[in-house]
């Protein structure tokens, strides 16, 4: 797989004076207010907060899905605020992995084919190796025997694990998970957080948005948002 070039190994993501404002017809909504944050590799970050606190906006900004209204976003030492849509797409495919609450698996593709979708953009993975890598990733989430199943044939927990395998397909440095256990039972929730924790230990930067208190057990750093402001930052050393 492609080695990541020119990476600042310490600061994976740095947000400076990050502000996101949504303009509606009647008012301005400040979703993120002048945030200064940095995310490092090998760490598990949990972003918590009530509905409307700005946590989903934050993960969208981090995932290059939404752009900032003001401030700077620095990814591996590269300012990305002024990049084109195509450049942002390339960064997303190479450096970011996404896990969503609703899994978003392609219903007409089998589990291993879903995992292969991001690899189709990666010129460094040979065509003949794609299926092998997909199966290895499914094995890593305990689903090798379900590789040939369609999403409808999998449970919610299994679908989410396929989504995690898909997020890992291009070996990204950062995994962004938006309410990854929102639709799962407790047993599957633990399984998913354990897998994410394991990935952080392997050196990836894991950023999870969650309502679940369970995530606190796994997170190295907890960011609590309130109306777009950073309410509290705590890390494992605090406890």
């Amino acid at each position, binding site marked *: 797989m492609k080695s990541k070039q020119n990476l600042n190994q310490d600061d994976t993501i740095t947000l400076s004076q990050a502000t996101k404002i949504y303009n509606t017809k009647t008012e301005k909504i400040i979703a993120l207010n002048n945030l200064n944050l940095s995310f490092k590799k090998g760490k598990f970050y949990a972003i918590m907060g009530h509905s409307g606190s700005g946590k989903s906006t934050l993960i*969208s900004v981090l*995932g290059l*899905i*939404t752009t900032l209204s003001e401030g700077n976003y620095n990814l591996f030492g590269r300012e990305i605020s002024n990049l084109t*849509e*195509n450049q942002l*797409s*390339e*960064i*997303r*495919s*190479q450096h*970011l992995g*996404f896990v*969503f609450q*609703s899994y*978003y698996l*392609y*219903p*007409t*593709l089998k589990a291993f*084919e879903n995992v292969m*979708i*991001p690899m*189709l*953009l990666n010129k460094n993975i040979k*065509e003949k190796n794609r299926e092998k890598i997909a199966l290895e990733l499914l094995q890593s989430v305990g689903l090798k025997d379900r590789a040939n199943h369609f999403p409808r044939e999998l449970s919610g927990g299994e679908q989410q694990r396929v989504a995690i395998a*898909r997020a890992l397909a291009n070996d990204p440095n950062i995994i962004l998970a938006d309410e990854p256990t929102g639709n799962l039972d407790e047993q599957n929730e633990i399984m998913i957080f354990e897998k994410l924790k394991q990935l952080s230990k392997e050196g990836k930067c894991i950023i999870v948005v969650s309502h679940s208190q369970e995530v606190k057990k796994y997170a190295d750093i907890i960011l609590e948002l309130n109306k777009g402001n950073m309410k509290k930052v705590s890390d494992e050393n605090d406890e």
Partner: protein
Amino acid sequence: MKTTNDIKFAFLKSIRDKTKFFYVLLISLCCFISLIIIGFYFNITEFIDESIEKNPAFNTILVTLNKEEDLSDVDHILDIHKSNNDFYANYTSFKNEKFDGWLLLSHGTPDTVPEVIYGKNIDKNSEDIAICPAKFYPDSGAQHFKINSSDILKNTDTLNSTFTIEYNSYKKNKFDDGIPIKDKTLNKTFKIVGLYDNTKTLNFNNECFVTPSVLKEITDTIDPYLDENSISGTYILIDDTKNLNYVKNELYKKGYTDIEMKKNIDIDIVKSLNQIVVVLLVVVIMGIIVLNALYIKKQILIEKSNIGILKALGYKKNKIKKIYILENMFLSTLAFVIAITVFIFTFLIIKYKFFVSFRYFGINLFLNYKIIFLPFLLTIMLSTLICSIILNKVLKSDIIKLLESEE
């Protein structure tokens, strides 16, 4: 991402989604209907148009007329000849156990002879030559529908061959009461130097064109006592169908009331047919456009969250567009293939099972690229265009909106 990957991805997406089957069925039905309409148009209306164009008989007016000089001041007239010079020869060398042997010998000039497709055209200076139909039918009267195609004499059998006609000369009887009696039997041999397409000219009478001088010699021999005043009619050949009305009006002005066409197809019916076909086509085209637009829009809206996830995974707009357009092209091509297969089968069944009798009259069914081209455009190109337009709109949405649009 290689195009082969795009194709594979699109192919897997399309063939595994059973809900797409309805779309394929719907579009193939529309395509089939358009093929039938266009097939009808080309086989009937174009055929008739072509026949009118290729057969001067459709430009020929028959009037009761005694003095040809009367029309010298009327424009657009190419040829004037007496109708009773045309002669049915009922004893010819064609006669055998299969052929009735009847031939219609007609006034042949380069203007009156239909387009020659084999051999050469008539030459007024060459006597004893004939331009004959490319297909000789066993029964010149075309009285029955059933015919064995192997019984038809084709160009290879007749071109440059000769045929002989038998006719009688007559003399006055001893009472001199105006009823002639047979004098002797005469023969005349003609060489077939050219053939015209009697199928496309809707001419099924086994009509051969010979030089006017020879024809007059024969008819004068047959009926030497013909009163000049008893002329049954005169054929007036007009240079173009569009000038028919002008000449007819001129004839009316000159006092001729008994005006007919030598060979007639009701142009109004042809025009009505064309109009009906055009209206049907417009309805089908609109139907295909609306159905395509509605269905593709619905499908793409259902797929919005999938499009969103592809964008989130790093797929560029053009890549996503390519995949979805390829998928649509697979489905519309499948619909087109189904429609064309069903159409060809239907066509062959109609042609060889139900249309055999019409072939005797030269009305044959044919397939050509023109029939297939418009349905192809409608089915594949139009769907692709509609898909592209809807995708352009959807792809403008940001990823969050696309992901949140999950049904």
